[in-house]
């Protein structure tokens, strides 16, 4: 996967570049929505375990808040490290 399959798109006419940009936009929207669903599923699973009432209690709610915040920080850190590796930035152990 070192070389991108996308290498030779630069020479394409303006119309195709716009189509490509629109495709990227669409994929990013889909990805954001999936991330949102992911975060909800993950934090619900980790934080909610009793079903004696139908509303979240204080403890569950603050667990979800912390979980969501950690999830976002985690994703950002993974994204940064991932980008560095994609660009071939080497760092010591």
């Amino acid at each position, binding site marked *: 996967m070192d070389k991108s399959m996308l290498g030779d798109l630069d020479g394409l006419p303006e119309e195709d570049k716009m189509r490509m940009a629109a495709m990227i936009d669409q994929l990013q929207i889909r990805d954001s929505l999936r991330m949102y669903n992911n975060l*909800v599923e993950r934090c619900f699973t980790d934080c909610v375990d009793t079903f004696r009432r*139908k*509303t979240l209690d204080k403890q569950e709610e603050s667990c979800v808040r912390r979980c969501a915040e950690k999830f976002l920080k985690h994703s950002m850190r993974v994204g940064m490290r991932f980008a560095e590796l994609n660009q071939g930035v080497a760092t010591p152990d």
Partner: protein
Amino acid sequence: AAGGAPTNMQKEQMFGLAEKEMEYRVDLFNRLTYTCFEKCIEKRHKEAELNMGENSCIDRCVSKYWQVTNLVGQLLGNQPKM
């Protein structure tokens, strides 16, 4: 988008957006279904009926999942696009 009929490009984007939103709702429903099955349903499957405990667990599970969705939406500024 002020005035006039939408261009083809705008139309394609609108259809694309509508499709993504429907996919999002289906994905949400599937995860909700899966998660509440995990949390509420007895796995040995001794009966073909849901018992009373399972039924009320499902109702509460859906309700709490819904609240978590809204809570997370608020935290993200009510933007599904994180």
